[in-house]
């Protein structure tokens, strides 16, 4: 339950409650249309209306955005009432719902779970408007609904992973917590393939910064012994299944994953190599917690931030995917979350030693200059 609540940004909680209550009230309200389509539309539009009206209570936005949110809420409310009465609401919903979603995507709003759920509610209202009426043409309406869900979901997904890649935590920069706080909070709430614990504080203390620098230096010193890929293989690290080339080949040590030691610079659970064109170079390490669900040890506070992945494990054939922003997986899959992990890079990439990822082009260039022949 705590993880579920972590996905709800505190500033969106009041709006979510208001939205759900409005949907329930509209569903039980008597005296309206008896059509199930109208009643569903009324409830979904009422949710969107109340949510937008209550969003300004949690945000400290400018006057312009507050007015826009209230106007959007009023428009949704008007359409909800018309749907309740069984009067024309379809054209309005078919225009307003996608417009609202596009506006959020353009503004690159923090994609927390409330935002994603609201997008889904609005997309369903859009579907009811365009795919249940012969006026639009059911085939076009149906295609439009599926297309809108895919495009909106993909846009939220891309924004989430872009933020994940862009999130940096440079131990050399004491202001890291402040400067990257927004990006991190985005990652913590979206829960679309990446699960992070919300930060207690986005500001690293002097002690935390010093601890983070010490950890990075310690890892760099310890990992000199695995500069050559052959030495890592001899020590027991193994290639991942089906991947022996690339800029981020994660090599696991099966024994270190269950040795009960955490954040040991001498025994990282994974090594990350860039391997291509007959050359290889060690880029960094990944520390992995032994048990899924256990919080990672973070001596550097917001600088040394751990993350987990919620994955789709498909059974036919065996494979891996990532949970979508809508929380789903493909057919014949189950959803799991792997133990928390943290990268520590020894090659000083852009973003610093604790960046979530390394730019592929940068890694390729680094390999060209520093790789050793296999």
């Amino acid at each position, binding site marked *: 339950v705590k993880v579920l609540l972590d996905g709800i940004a505190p500033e969106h909680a009041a709006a979510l409650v208001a939205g759900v209550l409005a949907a329930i009230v509209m569903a039980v309200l008597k005296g309206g249309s008896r059509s199930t389509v109208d009643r569903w539309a009324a409830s979904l539009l009422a949710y969107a209306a109340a949510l937008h009206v209550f969003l300004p209570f949690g945000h400290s936005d400018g006057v312009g955005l507050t007015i826009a949110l209230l106007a959007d809420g009023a428009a949704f409310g008007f359409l909800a009432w018309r749907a309740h009465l069984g009067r024309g609401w379809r054209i309005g919903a078919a225009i307003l719902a996608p417009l609202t979603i596009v506006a959020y995507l353009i503004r690159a709003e923090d994609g927390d*779970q409330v935002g994603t759920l609201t997008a889904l509610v609005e997309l369903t209202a859009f*579907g009811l408007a365009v795919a*249940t009426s012969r006026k639009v043409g059911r085939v076009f309406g149906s295609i439009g609904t*599926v297309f809108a869900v895919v495009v909106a979901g993909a846009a939220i997904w891309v924004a989430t992973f872009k933020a994940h890649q862009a999130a940096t935590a440079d131990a050399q920069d004491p202001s890291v917590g402040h400067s990257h706080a927004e990006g991190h909070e985005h990652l913590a709430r979206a829960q679309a393939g990446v699960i992070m614990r919300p930060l207690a504080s986005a500001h690293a203390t002097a002690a935390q910064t010093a601890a983070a620098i010490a950890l990075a230096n310690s890892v760099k010193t310890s990992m000199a012994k695995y500069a050559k890929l052959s030495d890592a293989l001899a020590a027991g690290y193994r290639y991942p299944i089906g991947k022996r080339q690339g800029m981020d080949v994660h090599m696991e040590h099966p024994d270190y994953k269950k040795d009960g030691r955490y954040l040991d610079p001498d025994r990282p659970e994974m090594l990350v190599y860039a391997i291509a064109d007959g050359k290889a170079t060690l880029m960094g390490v990944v520390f992995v917690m032994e048990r*899924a669900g256990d919080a990672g040890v973070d001596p550097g506070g917001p600088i040394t931030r751990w993350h987990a992945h*919620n994955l789709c494990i498909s059974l036919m054939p065996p494979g*891996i995917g990532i949970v*979508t922003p809508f929380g*789903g997986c493909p057919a014949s899959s189950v*959803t799991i979350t792997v133990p928390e992990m943290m990268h520590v890079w020894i090659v000083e990439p852009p973003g610093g030693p604790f960046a979530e990822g390394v730019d592929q082009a940068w890694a390729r260039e680094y390999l060209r200059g520093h790789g050793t022949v296999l």
Partner: protein
Amino acid sequence: VTSAKSNVVYVLLLVQVGMSLLATLGELLFMGGNLLYAVAPLLRITLTLIFGAMLLRGRRLALVGIVVLQGLSLIGFAASLVIGRLPQVDFTPTLTGVVTTFLLPIVLIVYCGQLLSTSGRPPARVVAVEVPAGQEVSA
């Protein structure tokens, strides 16, 4: 069978198809574009669309098919919960995940169940009764 409720079921299925397509694209990207990974998801998507179309034509079989597909979704949700009890992995409940993989299948099963019970019922017989003028009619 075709009714406003059928229309709602149809739209919810469309939303589900969109979400499934997105998940399939994600897995394809992750597995290097290997189309084998698209076979089972696309089969499910195709079946969902076929049942959706049949539902709008008033076919009773479509309701049974939708119930079976949604039942499989719920089994997948339950399997994720059980597997998440293992120490090596966890299950992360998310707001959207609970809505789309648990509540949505339940809503669809309930609606299809209601439509099935309605469609299986013989049409009510209407009998005209002549009432003398001035006499009240009671139930």
